[in-house]
């Protein structure tokens, strides 16, 4: 699992080197300024250089958030901005939970967890952050339809504020996933006073958090401008201004990077990787995300209930080719039921591409003369591309998949009234990833499989890593074998970075802390 860690470090080094290269490419007289801009803030051993920093970092973002209120957010692209305005109690870095606003925590028993908070944290309105704010944050999370299910095990009635800097969470049941939940953006701590004074609608536009930046100007549909919060507990941000420009077209984010109008372009398309690499002033940084795509089949469907058919469909997909065509280098073929960097991921033996075997299985199931299926596709993202290629691959084994597209709301409104579909998941905790197989989850797959239901319920209650792994591994093996879904690809998050960016630490989801990043002129 420290593959990712290595990758992160590697990329960091690469980005440093590249930023160095960028400097030398300009052939400016101050050749030595190329010497790692990333470390220049602290180490100025080389007295000859005088690196100048830009006061504004401009980021091309693909989507405008509807709100910057963390408990009312549910899109990664919104959390990307909120990351720089708020902080959670703890974070998950390098496969372990690390303190942020909390200094330490302990399990009192299976259902009670006590957090000790930092006493030096200020909100951007000047108020001190206390346990009251934390309590308030989680209480409102349970009132928000966007966060309630994330914290469904939290028993807010019995959660107690012990003192200003201590809070004890009570849970309905033992829940290891709770830690993961509070690291998610929905667990970002908001200022109780600010919310109550402003009201929700106003807070959504001018949020008050504890983070390094605060909103200074939000021009709807155009950009959000953040300014550094000088009372940030973790040290004032290196760059005073942060601007998120909303540029919906991926190719235009690339152009902005090329023309130097932005310093960073988020969420680039795989087709743009080569172009950015060819640029003199910018480069690509790629890290595995938590996003994976998978083919889902409805277990309410009589045909697909037959495991042989599901297996046949899996054998008929040339996964490496599919992933290469759709994603190029921006994703890897996924052999497992979770993204490879998810907590507790188990790598599986790849299902070989074997059309003969597929035909044979179909014949066994009574479909030697072919099979007609409906492939319902959400027109967004890459789903349609995937469907078209799979359609063609299945055609070779006699399976005709009729693609039906409709607008996204109609698609979602159909619930589980479908045969086959493609979806993407975006999470790193097994509880959140595998919930799609849960009978209680309702839509989509609906296997109504007692084993899965009990295993899902069981493992999140185990706090011991080793014990949990046993249950989880077994569940993953089962899911891989039973093939309610055919996992396809694990995608990467692609950053386009201008060479003047230093000290950049990529995040799988794009939740980059820009306060530590430097931008040279």
């Amino acid at each position: 699992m420290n593959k990712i860690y290595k990758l992160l470090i590697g990329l960091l080094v690469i980005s440093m080197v590249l930023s160095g290269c960028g400097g030398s490419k300009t052939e400016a007289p101050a050749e030595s300024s190329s010497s790692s801009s990333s470390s220049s803030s602290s180490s100025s051993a080389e007295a000859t250089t005088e690196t100048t920093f830009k006061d504004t970092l401009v980021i091309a973002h693909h989507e405008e958030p509807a709100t910057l209120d963390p408990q009312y957010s549910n899109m990664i692209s919104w959390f990307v901005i909120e990351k720089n305005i708020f902080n959670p109690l703890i974070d998950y870095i390098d496969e372990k939970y690390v303190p942020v606003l909390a200094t330490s925590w302990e399990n009192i028993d299976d259902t009670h967890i006590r957090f000790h908070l930092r006493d030096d944290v200020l909100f951007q309105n000047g108020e001190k952050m206390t346990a009251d704010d934390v309590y308030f944050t989680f209480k409102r999370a349970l009132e928000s339809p966007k966060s309630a299910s994330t914290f469904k095990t939290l028993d807010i009635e019995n959660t107690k504020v012990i003192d200003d800097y201590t809070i004890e969470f009570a849970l309905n049941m033992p829940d290891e996933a709770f830690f993961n939940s509070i690291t998610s953006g929905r667990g970002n701590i908001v200022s109780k006073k600010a919310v109550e004074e402003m009201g929700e609608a106003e807070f959504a536009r001018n949020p008050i958090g504890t983070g390094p930046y605060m909103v200074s100007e939000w021009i709807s549909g155009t950009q959000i401008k953040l300014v550094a919060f000088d009372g940030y507990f973790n040290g004032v941000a290196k760059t005073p201004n942060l601007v998120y420009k909303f540029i919906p077209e991926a190719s235009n984010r690339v152009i902005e990077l090329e023309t130097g109008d932005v310093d960073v372009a988020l969420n680039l398309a795989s087709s743009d990787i080569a172009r950015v690499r060819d640029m003199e002033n910018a480069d690509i940084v790629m890290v595995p995300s938590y996003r994976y795509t998978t083919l889902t089949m409805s277990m309410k469907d009589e045909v697909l209930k037959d495991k042989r058919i599901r297996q046949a469909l899996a054998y008929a997909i040339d996964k490496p080719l599919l992933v290469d065509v759709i994603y190029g280098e921006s994703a890897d073929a996924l052999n497992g039921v979770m993204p490879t960097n998810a907590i507790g991921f188990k790598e599986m033996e790849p299902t070989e591409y074997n059309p003969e075997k597929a035909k044979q299985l179909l014949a066994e199931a009574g479909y030697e003369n072919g099979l007609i299926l409906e492939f319902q596709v959400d027109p967004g993202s890459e789903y349609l591309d995937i469907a078209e290629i799979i359609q063609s691959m299945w055609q070779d084994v006699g399976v005709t998949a009729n693609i039906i597209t409709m607008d996204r709301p109609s698609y979602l409104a159909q619930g589980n009234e479908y045969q086959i579909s493609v979806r993407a998941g975006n999470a790193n905790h097994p509880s959140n990833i595998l919930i799609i197989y849960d009978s209680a989850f309702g839509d989509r797959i609906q296997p109504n499989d007692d084993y899965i239901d009990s295993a899902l319920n069981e493992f999140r209650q185990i706090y011991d890593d080793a014990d949990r792994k046993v249950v989880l591994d077994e569940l993953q093996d089962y899911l891989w074998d039973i093939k309610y879904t055919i996992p396809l690809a694990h995608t990467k998050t692609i950053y386009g970075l201008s060479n003047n960016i230093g000290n950049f630490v990529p995040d799988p989801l794009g939740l980059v802390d820009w306060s530590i990043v430097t931008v040279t002129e």
Partner: protein
Amino acid sequence: MLRFLFRRILMMIPVLLGVSFVVFFMSYFTPGDPAVMILGDMATQEDIQMMHEQLKLDEPFLVQYVNYVKNIVTKGDFGTSYTTKQPVLDELLVRFPNTFKLAGLSVILSVIIGITVGIVSATRQYSILDNVATAISFIGVSMPNFWQGMMLIIVFSVWLGWLPPSGFSTPMHWILPAVTIGTSSAAQIMRMTRSSMLEVIRQDYIRTARAKGQSERIVIWRHALKNALIPIITVVGLSFGRLLGGAVLTESIFSIAGIGKLMVDAINMRNYPLVQGGVLFIAIVMSVVNLIVDVLYAYVDPRIRTQFTTNSIRKKIRLGEVGDE
């Protein structure tokens, strides 16, 4: 004329009621659940139920509609956006200036180009100039906006570095989007001008004007153009109206915060208050544009002018029994 204006403005009320009802009806019976759209496909049933309550989606159709209209009439409240929780009116008003500017600029541009080229084309029918203009207009109308927009960005922003690739804040930002949109409208206006002018310049009164010794320039621009204007005004009015409803692709490509993308996003999110508010807003704008077009008709063509005054005295006027005013 004043009475006519007053009557037309009064007529906007049933139009707006009609629009709001049709849209309300459509949105209510269109598949798709705003709660699911907002929460995403990972939402649980409880989340969705909670959202339904917060958005008051469970009320019957007519109750929702009546409340909606009542809030507008009594409080001027167009509701709040499901997604951003901001007042719908604010959301629209932030974006409208951009849309208006973009529409206005591109219409001005396309009128100047379209009418000039159309006239040149008509007066030199079948000349090389006419053929070239015709060919360019076909390209203009069949070239997709996004393609043209991308090409303009690549040439003028990336290669030449003259103009900014996106945004809409300064006049420099306005050029590329206005050109992108203006091209296809210009092509349409050009074709319409050409055809209309071809009709007109064959008329006897053009020969009369020439026989007076009037210069060709004035014959074309004063005598002929004014007669050819009616269909041109119609097309210009239509494309201006259409553009005020937003130009989705161009807005996306140039990252302009306009009505078009707002509306498409709202429809795709089933953000009904915003959809309804937006459609009402567009309806008002369209009605005003159409009213202006009708007034222009009357201004340009005295025969239409008499039709807008009442019917009974029209006949008398034509018989020469009473004066016009």
